[in-house]
């Protein structure tokens, strides 16, 4: 009797620990990963697919906060300000069964620094990675780097022996069309194992039952079927008809439809992307306007007036159907340096704007061309159309020129536009990234996306010093001071923060991740 009781108890215990049913997550979004080679392309959807199979030292959880992955803890070295020390997780194995050690980390960083790697800029400050013992590494940078961990959240660790055995020690030469074993196969430490992959058609992954965190995370999905569906209407239809359980890249116009459908929900969160207009203030005369010999945008009053003409609430309600958060600064809300006060520093005041314009000597207004993408951001062209009407109210006649992104972005980087739309995401979650690309004067390797012609040497020096300032309070004070200049100069006209929407079946439990990078190990299915 006792024996049978013990047996049935054991059986019951086993039943609770071993998941009974297989749960498949059918997941669709608009595009596919470009390659599986962990270091070949630094691109959102590509990283998202890799995150299921490979792991970096640190990941961001669904709130955007750091979470230990292959490293258990990390801190700057107490002896040398140029060194970060990472303690690695013990007892982790790759999918092929081989053990994860410091040697693999050292190798992966070296691989990511190869010329063909697309990740090399992100870790450009790293001069050396050395293994102290099997589970400790030291990362040496060319100067103190207080925000190094932020640059490592998409830097995946590969198995040194696996790459050697399969001749993929070198990063795939993506532009040269090279195919290596690592392009189509994966051997990571991650929660899911690659089963099959047909680029642009279907990728299937199954749960890694030896995953180190199998008891720590929900891990309820046993199989992932990932399908890119390009056409927005078809993508939504697939969700509505129950052929897909989880959808990224939800079209804004279908949100109500999905929300009202039985068994489906839409979840949303502010996205790590802010949308704004840039104005060329640097040139003596600009081509895109009707004023000869002068550049109206060079006058801060004109720039402020234009910003005051934009009715961000109207754009939110009419153009975005409520799916945006009006912005007053060009940093997404969870970025270090963002403040609620500065983000509220935008107001609509048509009369005030007209007065400012008159003060600047443009009482009759002027006309200017606005360059806008039509396939990059949510309702990008419609936002520009709305802005045309709003600027018209203060006498600024705007000629809209909307183009596909492949034609729009070169205008900005080549300095061929004087008034343009741009959106910006901040993978490092720190303002320095924004300053480096959008505020620092344009040089060959810094300020590359600053199309405003703004170039302030003192400010540039301050921006450069952020990289090595280890005194975080002083650094944050500098960041606030730089933002003050950006705001007072009306360098950009902030429009809004995009809101991210994920559509899913009710049984899928996951919160929206601001980076648009779902990690399936956090999903529950019931």
């Amino acid at each position, binding site marked *: 009797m006792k024996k049978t009781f013990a047996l049935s108890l054991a059986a019951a215990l086993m039943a609770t620990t071993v998941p009974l049913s297989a749960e498949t997550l059918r997941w669709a979004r608009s595009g596919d990963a470009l390659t599986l080679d962990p270091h070949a392309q630094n691109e959102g959807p590509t990283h998202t697919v890799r995150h299921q199979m490979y792991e970096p030292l640190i990941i961001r959880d669904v709130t955007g906060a750091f979470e230990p992955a292959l490293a258990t803890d990390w801190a700057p070295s107490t002896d040398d300000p140029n060194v970060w020390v990472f303690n690695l997780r013990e007892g982790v194995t790759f999918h092929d069964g081989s053990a994860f050690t410091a040697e693999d980390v050292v190798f992966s960083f070296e691989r990511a620094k190869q010329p063909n790697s*697309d990740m090399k*800029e992100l870790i450009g400050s790293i001069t050396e990675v050395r293994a102290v013992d099997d589970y400790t590494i030291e990362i040496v940078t060319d100067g103190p780097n207080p925000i190094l961990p932020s640059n490592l959240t998409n830097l995946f660790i590969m198995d040194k022996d696996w790459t050697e055995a399969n001749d993929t020690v070198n990063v795939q030469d993506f532009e040269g069309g090279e195919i290596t074993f690592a392009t189509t196969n994966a051997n990571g430490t991650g929660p899911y194992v690659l089963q099959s992959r047909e680029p642009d058609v279907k990728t299937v992954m199954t749960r890694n039952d030896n995953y180190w965190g199998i008891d720590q995370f929900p891990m309820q999905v046993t199989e992932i079927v990932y399908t890119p*569906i390009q*056409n927005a209407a*078809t993508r939504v239809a*697939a969700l509505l008809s129950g052929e897909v359980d989880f959808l990224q890249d939800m079209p804004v116009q279908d949100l109500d439809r999905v929300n009202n459908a039985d068994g489906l929900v839409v979840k949303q969160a502010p996205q790590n992307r802010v949308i704004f207009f840039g104005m060329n203030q640097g040139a003596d005369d600009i081509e895109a306007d009707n004023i000869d010999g002068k550049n109206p945008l060079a006058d801060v009053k004109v720039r402020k007036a234009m910003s005051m003409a934009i009715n961000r609430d109207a754009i939110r309600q009419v153009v975005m159907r409520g799916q945006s958060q009006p912005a007053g600064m060009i940093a997404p809300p969870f970025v270090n340096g963002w403040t609620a006060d500065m983000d509220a520093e935008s107001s609509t005041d048509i009369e005030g704007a007209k007065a400012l314009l008159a003060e600047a000597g443009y009482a009759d207004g002027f006309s200017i061309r606005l360059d806008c993408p039509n396939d990059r951001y949510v309702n990008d062209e419609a936002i520009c159309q709305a802005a045309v009407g709003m600027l018209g109210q203060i006498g600024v006649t705007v000629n809209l020129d909307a183009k596909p992104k492949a034609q729009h972005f070169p205008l900005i980087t080549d300095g061929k536009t004087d008034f343009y739309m741009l959106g910006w995401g901040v993978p490092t979650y720190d303002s320095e990234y924004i300053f480096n690309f959008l505020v620092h004067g344009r040089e060959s*390797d810094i300020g590359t996306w600053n199309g405003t012609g703004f170039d302030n040497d003192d400010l540039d020096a301050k921006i450069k010093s952020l990289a090595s300032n280890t005194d975080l309070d002083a650094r944050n004070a500098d960041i606030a001071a730089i933002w003050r200049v950006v705001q007072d100069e009306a360098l950009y006209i902030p429009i809004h923060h995009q809101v991210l929407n994920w559509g899913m079946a009710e049984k899928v439990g996951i919160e929206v991740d601001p980076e648009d990078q779902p990690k399936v190990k956090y999903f529950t299915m019931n």
Partner: protein
Amino acid sequence: MLAFIIRRIGQSILVLLIVGLVAFSMFNFVGDPIDNMLGQERTAEDIERLRIQLGLDQPFPVQYFKFLQEAVQGNFGVSYRQGRPVAEILLERAPATLELAAVSGILAIIFGIALGVFTAIRRNGVLANIVMSASLIGVSLPTFLIGILLIYVFSVELGWLPSFGRGDVVDLGWWRTGFLTESGLKALILPSITLGLYQMTLIMRLVRSEMLEVLRQDYIRFARARGLKDRAVNFRHALKNTMVPVITVIGLQLGAIIAFAIITETVFQWPGVGLLFINAIQFVDIPVMAAYLMLISVMFVGINLAVDILYFFIDPRLRADRAGGH
């Protein structure tokens, strides 16, 4: 006849070269591929290095010449987006498009001819009039709308058929077919109707008007006067004489089915060459665009050639004319 064929082949090659030249001159306007290939962290040096590496710093006639040089050796370059040889990608994608086009084409021909004959013979019948009115929808509604409507009705509301993809495919080594699995066959239904509907109505209307024309001819009256059965008159005499112009159009439409599968493939996420081409345009993937456009023009030129040759066998008068020489 041989001289005729050789002359036509010569003309065809000229057409191909011109198509290629026009295509290459257009690529500059599609946008800058570099922008999509490098992330936002790129530097000016990265851009310059890649531009030179890809040969994009050269004027377009030079780029075109280089493309031709490689293409005649069967090398179509490397896709900017997928980083794989274009020829390999096209071969991988072709079966999906060809299977879809074949099914749509066969549906369009069978139903088009049958309904055309029916509406011609029963010219004043109620059913024939209904078919004729309904066919207006097929001609006037754009393909993407028909596709989305079908998805809405049969996938979302009724849940009978899949809204996207090709279902399970069987790999035969050099050809992945969807004909051998149930989900593959189910997935074919909506896209092939969407793709073939326009062609079907076109064929039907053409067959009908040609047939009405033929039915008015004297030899048909004589045949009836001789007391031949209706079936013999309609099918042996009338339909056969209707087919000459119809075959020309079917031939050309066959090319159109493959070329315009682009829209249907986009709506149904059908993994064929049309979808590949749309992706290529968005990404400014020049090697894929160039190879696809050349492939499609080779196909059109080839079909035209085949149709011309077919005339010889169907219409004896053409043979007599040519044999007489000019």
